């Protein structure tokens, strides 16, 4: 038997790490990967909640999170591929067409 606070803390820590990667990394691939880390951490939290309350809802949510991650990563990667033509370096900070003034 495990107290649910442990896994919850771990999920929080993983989420924070993902957030850190999102804010700090400049390359677009790494930004996408950080988003994946965050989604994964959320999934862990769902499972923990499912264990806590003792019903399958947590796992069902995980399935849906996986679903979402898949769809999103497909589109995101396609966009990166198409972006390669404009931004050969895939530098997030160089994409400033929407700059004001």
């Amino acid at each position, binding site marked *: 038997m495990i107290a649910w606070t442990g896994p919850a803390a771990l999920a929080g820590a993983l989420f924070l790490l993902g*957030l850190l990667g*999102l*804010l700090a990394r*400049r390359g677009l691939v790494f*930004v996408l990967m950080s988003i994946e880390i965050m989604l994964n951490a959320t999934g862990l939290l769902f499972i923990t909640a499912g264990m806590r309350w003792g019903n399958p809802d947590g796992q069902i949510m995980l399935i849906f999170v996986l679903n979402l991650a898949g769809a999103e990563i497909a589109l995101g990667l396609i966009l990166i591929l198409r972006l390669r033509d404009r931004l050969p370096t895939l530098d*997030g*900070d160089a*994409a*400033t*067409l*929407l*700059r*004001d*003034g």
Partner: protein
Amino acid sequence: MMAQWLWLVPAAPLLGAVLLGLFGPAFGTRVCAMIGTGSVGIAAIVAVLLALGGRGVSQALWPWVVLPGFSVNIGLYLDPVSLLMTLVITVIGCLIHLFSTEYMAGEAGYSRFFAYLNLFVAAMLLLVLADDLLVLFVGWEGVGVCSYLLVGFWFLESENGWAAQKSFVVTRIADIFMLAGLLLLSTDLGTLSIRPMLAAATAAWPQGGALPTTAAALLLIGGLGKSAQVPLQTWLPDAMAGPTPVSALIHAATMVTAGVYLVVRLHPLFLLCPGLMAAIACGAAATLLVAALAGLFQTDIKRVLAYSTMSQIGYMFLALGVGAWPAAMFHFLSHAVFKALLFLSAGAISMRLHHEQDIFRMGGLRTKIPVAFWCFLVGAASLAALPVITCGFFSKEMILGFVWSAPGMGPALWAAAIFGALLTAIYIFRAVFVVFFGPATTAVSGAYGVRIVLPIAVLSAAALCIGWLETPHFLGGRAFFSAFLAPSTGVVARHRINGLIPLAGFCVPLLGTGIAWVLYRRGFWHALAARPEGRLRALLRGGSEFDAVYDALLTRPFFWAVRVLRDDPVDQAFGGLEWLAIALHRRLRGSQSGQLRRYAGWLTAGSVATILLLVFG
């Protein structure tokens, strides 16, 4: 019976004014002249007939204000005082109209001139015939407006406009005080109808109390403004910018005496405030000295006459200040005659000299224009109060007698008055000698028609004869004039004064004339005019610089405020809001960098802040 025609007196000139105003340019010059002079003539005839008929007639016309507790009716009241004023206004007015039909011939705006002049006569008649102070005030304002219109008659030159504006603004300021006085009277006594109001005032208010003094003082200020007395006298010399008949009628004979009329009409109210009467006398003495001193140094003949008007009305106010109502009215009558005569003669002279008005450019006109010379001489003699032959002597003698026997400051005031008489004789005869004697400097052209000569001849005859209406005791002691006025002014006893005082009154004018002659022979006047102006002379010539004081106290602060507010500071404060918004926009624009990472960072920061607030707050 005649009473029912009383309304015709102000109505005839008013009708003339309306006709000339609406259709003037369509009529020819002759028709305009006939309507203009005729309407005043009708009023004169009616006034004379009323004089021969009964006295103390009144005619109620219409109710005007009907409120619970206060009502004003438009009505006309003819008693000896107003009859006297009506006769003067209409008869002298008619003569002046006749004169100006020829004087203004060939001027643009001929019909406009007569329209304004008729309107003025109508307003002035309303003023003197009014039965209610509010109706009097309507006439009061009316004459002010007409004075503005007529002084600025030649409006294409801007100085005339400024002079007209000055006269209007100064009298308007005085009128505000008068309005305050009317409000005080109406709220405290409940009525502005003259006779009931005076009865209520004498019954309800104590002698020397604060209320009567305040009310009388406020009304007096209005009168001082209209009559060009110190401290509101600055407009009169500049008002000489108008045509000469205007100066003759408005600024010599009639409008400027409105203040005197007001005090005489309301004399029971003024008798309640002995302190104020003393103040009136002192102010009048100051005015007559300031004006007489100024008259010594003028070079424009009309300005000499303007300052002499100021000075003579000072004499009338001096008489009012000591309670000698008949004396003031007698001097009013003789002043109206000889001042109109002087102005018309001056106009006649300048007509022949291409409208030259500087006395040092005239000369030797005694032989060139004898008619004008003799008429001007009669007028000047009356002004200087040369003994026995002129009306001015009798009226001034009457005033001096009353002033000497006044309790308290009598002798001091008499000394000021007699000194003023000396100065008067000097300055007017200075003008006479410089203009009519010596070598001719400007060429004379043209000739006079009967319409110029008749009025000044009639006025000269009047100036020589009218004096005998009221004589001092050593010349017969006739009191016809005082008896005529007694029903409205009360009986004011005239003391017998012996010895030096009447003798002084006899000799001083002769002395003044002699001094002027001697100085003329020595060429003093010409030398004085040729010399550059010293400080003292500039001060006295400018009427003791009241203008400068008003400029510093009132005009400059006003224009300073105008300058400060010119850019609309309030609007600029609102403009500051706009500036602030734009400045903020420029600063905040920098945050739209287009960089994903930065946007993500701001998003995170905002979310973290909210979460912290929720968790720890």
